[in-house]
Structure formats: structure tokens, C-alpha cells
């Protein structure tokens, strides 16, 4: 709809909207996270959901105990290689549309355990991540900021056209392969369809 016409109508007391705006407005204000935590970041996530930081202001206070009822996965904490297949499996069990926030240094890159043998160097190696939060652990304010960033992202999604999100595009996958336990490492060590090593220029 033409922006000029819309503001002209608004001045006359006629409010208009589009289905897209209404749909995204509803979606972005009722993001239900999956209630699971992996390490100390989960404590900050819990604090963010309690009265002091009050995640309920963003419509996200309903932490669902089942992936079938959740829209958002907050990967809060260190993802060990032993836990990674279960995290991917939980993600696969969530219905579309679904979003991921990788919370904290460990979840985005392995953090202080990056040079270890047992920690996954970022959950974005297996599942697509929408918002990364650095910090060890990030304060609840940082999680709130990630929420607002995610809300902006949902708000700007187009329902039609080539740029439409994954859940409206039947050709795009909604499930991602679960890594298997290998003899020395997870197999495969990353999902090339989701993650590519950043190109280093020095």
C-alpha cells in the first residue's frame, strides 16, 4: 500500500493495514521459547524471564516444555559434542516458523572451550542461527536486545516473493541432519549447507 495514501487516510481517521503487517505483528509479539538450558547462560535466561527483567513485556514469557509448542530455541550455554545431536533433534521437532538465538560465547563459537576436544565450536555449524549474543554470560539486557532484534527480523519478513522466509518456502528444508557420534569426532563435523568457515584475509 502506498505510504502517502496510508498517512492521508490516517489523518482522516481511517486506519489501514496489510495482512502481512498484521500477521507479523501477531507473530512477533508471541514468541514462545523452548524451556531448556545447557549451562550457566541458562541462569541469565531464567533471570530475564522473571519479574526484574520481565520477558513477558515481549510476549515471550511462556517457556514451553515441549519443542512441539515452541517457536524459539534459545541455545543458552556450552554445547558439548555429546549434546549437539540432541539440540539439533530438538530443533527438528519444533514446528515452523522457528527461530534460534545463540546465547553466549560458547553457543556462538565454543567460547573459552574453543580449543578443547569436547565442545562444539558454535551451534551455527548445524542449525541456522538468527541472532548471536556475545558475552560470558550475556546479561539479561543482552537477551532482551536479542529478542528485540528477532522481533524486528520477524516484522520485516515478507510473506510472498523470492525473499519469503523458510517456513513459507516448500523447497527449503525445515529439518536439518542430526550429526552422528563418530570414533574421534561428530560426523559430519559441520553441516556445509548451513555453515561455511569465514574467509580469513590477513
Amino acid at each position, binding site marked *: 500500500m502506498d505510504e502517502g495514501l496510508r498517512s492521508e487516510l490516517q489523518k482522516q481517521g481511517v486506519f489501514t493495514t496489510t495482512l502481512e503487517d498484521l500477521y507479523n505483528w501477531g507473530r512477533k509479539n508471541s514468541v514462545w521459547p523452548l524451556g531448556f538450558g545447557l549451562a550457566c547462560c541458562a541462569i541469565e535466561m531464567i533471570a530475564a524471564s522473571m519479574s526484574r527483567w520481565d520477558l513477558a513485556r515481549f510476549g515471550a514469557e511462556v517457556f514451553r516444555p515441549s519443542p512441539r509448542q515452541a517457536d524459539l530455541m534459545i541455545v543458552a550455554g556450552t554445547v558439548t559434542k*555429546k549434546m549437539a545431536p540432541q539440540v539439533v533433534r530438538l530443533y527438528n521437532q519444533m514446528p515452523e516458523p522457528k527461530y534460534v538465538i545463540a546465547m553466549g560465547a560458547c553457543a556462538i563459537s565454543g567460547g573459552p572451550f574453543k580449543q578443547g576436544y569436547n565442545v562444539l565450536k558454535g551451534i551455527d555449524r548445524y542449525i541456522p542461527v538468527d541472532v548471536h549474543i556475545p558475552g560470558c554470560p550475556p546479561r539479561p539486557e543482552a537477551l532482551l536486545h536479542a529478542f528485540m532484534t528477532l522481533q524486528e527480523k520477524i516484522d520485516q519478513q515478507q510473506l510472498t516473493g523470492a525473499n519469503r522466509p523458510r517456513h513459507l518456502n516448500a523447497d527449503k528444508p525445515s529439518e536439518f541432519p542430526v550429526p552422528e557420534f563418530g570414533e574421534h569426532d561428530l560426523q559430519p563435523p559441520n553441516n556445509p549447507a548451513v555453515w561455511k568457515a569465514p574467509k580469513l584475509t590477513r
Partner: protein
Amino acid sequence: MEGAQADAIRLKFNVLSLESIKSQIEQAIPGAKLEIVKNDAPSAQHSLLVDNASALAVAKFLRDDPALCFDYASNVTGVDWPEAELSEKIKVKKVVDGVEKEVEEVKKTLRPGYLETVYHLYSMELKQGPVILRLRTENRTDKAHLPSLTPVWRGAEFQEREIFDLYGIVFDGHPDLRRILMWEGFKDFPMRKDYVEPDDYEYEPTPHDEVHDKAKQHYPAEAKG
């Protein structure tokens, strides 16, 4: 005495002399081969090396003897000693140009590799400890077996499982010997000195030292450096 001062004295653990414990064990268990491993560090926590055959009997004695009563295994851990060439300087008398002289020589000995478990024992009943037990395997490959002390101290169960997982020491007599941190089917022992971790350093923002060497292999050809 009353109050906090008395508490402090009561909570203080009494350290027994290792020599007396050694002679007590030798009296009670005739076949036991014990050796005191000295610790030269300021803490001077000497430990008792126990032979594998009598380890279980020694452990039972330490727990059940009314004067010792070591009822609590506070910590069980592993140590990896890979094969190493030890060199020590010794003075040798030699005849040089017809004159006998004292000459320093470097003597090199090859120490075979072995794995070790260390038990820290305390007595909660008598407020004494720690006594440190060491058990050694014959080698690091096919004879990495030790008797499990879980039947004596139940609290050692998970710690022995962890040592089995990370060092590869097989505890005979352990009730449930499975990997605990890594997954079933994992083949390596990560805490051993010769462990090579999987190469997943495709991207390192600030590489340094050996991490840098490893990350370099993943750099594109024009950015090697």
C-alpha cells in the same frame, strides 16, 4: 575451650606419618609391596605406591582398621606418564691421562610409560588425612589394568569411570565401567599426553602458538602467514 576456637581445632585434620601407616599395612598384609613416593614440593604430600595384587586388601585395611578408619575417598584422579628419557648427572671416577679424576657424566635411562591413579583418602570419623595412594599400570597400551577400589569406597565409582573414559585405564571389579563424559563408540583417550584432537580449527579469530599452526592449514593459499 568453647565456640569457634574449639570448632577450628576440631575441624583440623590430623596428618598421619606415612612411614607408620606403611609399617602397619605391612604387618597386617604380609604380601603387600609398598613404596613411598616422595613429593619434593613445599606441600610435601608424600604418597604410597601400592602393588596391584594387594591393592584391594590394602584399601580394605585402611578403611576398616579402627585406628586408621579412612572412610572417605575424597578424590580419585589419573596421571599419564608417557615413555621418557630421563637424564641425571652422576660423578664417575675415571682415569684421565694416568691420573684418577672425578668426572661428571650424564646418565640416560629410558623410563617405560605407564598410567597411574591417585586416591586421596580422609577419615571423617577420626578427622585425619589425607593419605595418598598410587596405583600403576604395567604399560599404556594392552596392560592398562588396575583393580577397582569402588567395592571399598562407593564414591569412587563415577571418578573411576571418568578415568576409564579419559585415560583408558580399565578397572577390574568395577560394577559399571562405561564411558561417562564422551559417548559410547569414542575411540580416543583425551587426557593422555599423546592425544590428537580432531582438526576443527577452520576459523580462529585470534590464533596463536600451536593453534595458529593448526589454523594455518585451513587458510586460503594467498593468506598463509
